[in-house]
């Protein structure tokens, strides 16, 4: 089975590189956020009084030192993000980013959501994966056997982690009355914390849609790994997940959470599959009849050939 062969990672080098670029944008947004609210989030004069707090009080004599320290940490953090985007420092850069991210997350755990939790594991697994075969400023050598092996381990870990997230979330819902009776979506969208005011009022008056959507989300989460086994089911499942997370972003105001979960779907798509989807979208953009355009395309979803492993020059195996 290809899953267990380290060479099966080669078609995914493109996806891993694309994920690295996305993470650079994501972390830049987070740095900006932390910088803007550093007084509220980390200052001893802010709301949270953590036992981990090592920074002196802002009104003490060490105020200047504190400002310097925060400035320094965030500059180093953003510097590493830029290096990661450029592909400089390779796995060491991502390892450094992982350590700083873990430290920042421990400083104020109250502001974390599921997206931050997934980000922690993504950076950890990406730190021993070769995501530098595309989109780098410096030319990188084709990966040797060890790099391919560790990339395979990292890729499978990321994929397993995402599957674990959905399956655990789905199983936890099984013993919940509101999911069992199909009313969970109604309650979640009614909460003030997650009510963006978009669609929520309309959905409130649509009990059939609420019920069907609740069951659809629940079943999709439980069977997420099973959908990955078939190539068309996989693309449909990832499309469903993309729309689900877009909905979460729009209606529940969880923007960074949703965008990270959409981006992480890249690790399930081989290079040829991504190109196939991009071509389809590009054709659809040119032609207003979206579905008609997709069905009239000359090629179907590319099939994985385990003998040839021919995914273009960028993914060629070592000879």
């Amino acid at each position, binding site marked *: 089975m290809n899953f267990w062969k380290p060479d099966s990672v080669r078609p995914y080098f493109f996806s891993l590189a694309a994920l690295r670029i996305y993470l650079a944008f994501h972390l830049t947004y987070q740095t900006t956020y932390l910088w803007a609210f550093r007084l509220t989030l980390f200052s001893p004069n802010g709301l949270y009084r*953590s036992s981990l707090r090592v920074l002196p009080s802002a009104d003490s004599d060490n105020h200047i030192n504190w400002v310097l320290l925060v400035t320094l940490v965030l500059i180093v953090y953003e510097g590493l993000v830029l290096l990661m985007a450029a592909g400089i420092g390779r796995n060491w850069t991502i390892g450094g980013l992982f350590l700083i991210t873990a430290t920042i997350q421990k400083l104020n755990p109250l502001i974390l959501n599921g997206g931050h939790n997934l980000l922690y594991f993504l950076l950890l697994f990406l730190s021993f994966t070769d995501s530098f075969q595309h989109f780098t400023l410096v030319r990188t*050598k084709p990966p*040797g056997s060890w790099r391919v092996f560790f990339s395979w381990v990292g890729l499978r870990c990321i994929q397993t982690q995402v599957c674990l997230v959905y399956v655990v*979330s789905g199983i936890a819902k099984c013993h919940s*009355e509101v999911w069992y009776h199909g009313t969970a979506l109604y*309650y*979640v969208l009614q909460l003030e914390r997650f009510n963006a*005011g978009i669609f929520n009022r309309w959905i409130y008056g649509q009990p059939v849609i609420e019920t069907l959507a609740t069951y659809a989300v629940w079943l999709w989460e439980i069977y997420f790994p099973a959908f990955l086994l078939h190539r068309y089911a996989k693309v449909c499942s990832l499309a469903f997940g993309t729309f689900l997370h877009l909905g979460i972003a729009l209606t529940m105001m969880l923007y960074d959470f949703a965008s990270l979960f959409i981006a992480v779907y890249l690790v399930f798509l081989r290079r040829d599959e991504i190109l196939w989807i991009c071509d389809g979208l590009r054709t659809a953009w040119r032609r207003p009849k979206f579905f008609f355009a997709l069905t009239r395309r000359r090629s179907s979803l590319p099939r994985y050939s385990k003998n040839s492993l021919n995914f*273009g*020059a960028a993914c060629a195996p070592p000879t």
Partner: protein
Amino acid sequence: MNAPLETQDTCADKLFACGSNRPSANDASRMAEPAANQVPSRKARIAIVGAIGAYWILATLYVMPNNYIRAKAITVMEYYQQVFFQRWEFFAPPATSDYRIYIEAPEEPAAAPVSYELAQPLMEAKRRNAPFNSAETAIDYQLSNSLLAIEVALKEESQNAKRSDSSITDVEAYRRATVAVTSSSSIAMSDVELVRLYCAQAANRLFSTEQRRHYVIRIARRPVAPFRDFVSGRPASSPVPETLILEIPQPP
């Protein structure tokens, strides 16, 4: 006849090639030779895959629902969560109520108390300013997670009180729990302090100097309107009352 898709230069291929240090799919002749690295030995590969496999067994054990095996491995789980903490039960079960934070002070001179609610205006501002609501989100996350931690601590302290003295009533156990949670040695001390600080900032704006000395904080839950009746299909009309969770007095 068309060539196989893998060897065609598709539109997207050209698009992505601009950022790549690799040649396009058709340009196989420019493919660099792979580095002549040593092939990992079978033993090394088995050892690494074994270690990763052990990690995933622990991870699965950690995230699974509480059961006999997990309970027996509680020490290992505690070590595991120091580094690999993860929690994925998104809205399972979903919250069915909103928090309410009241600050209440006696009106001068000794008439009906003045009361303000602080949570709803914050959520309203968060909704109004979306998607540029990072400031409100930062406060909302800290406040909501603290309130949740306080509620969990109250439950734990209530159970502890019942365990230590089985003759006490639920009301008495709850009273003892509130005292324990608001004390300085509470496990939710940082969370109680956070709520106190947030309320103090609001009280500075809303109350007079005299009122600031005597106000109390009340945390309550306001359930959302229940889902419509399954048979008639009508929305539930009866309003659900708020329930008080905790009253936090001013520290002496």
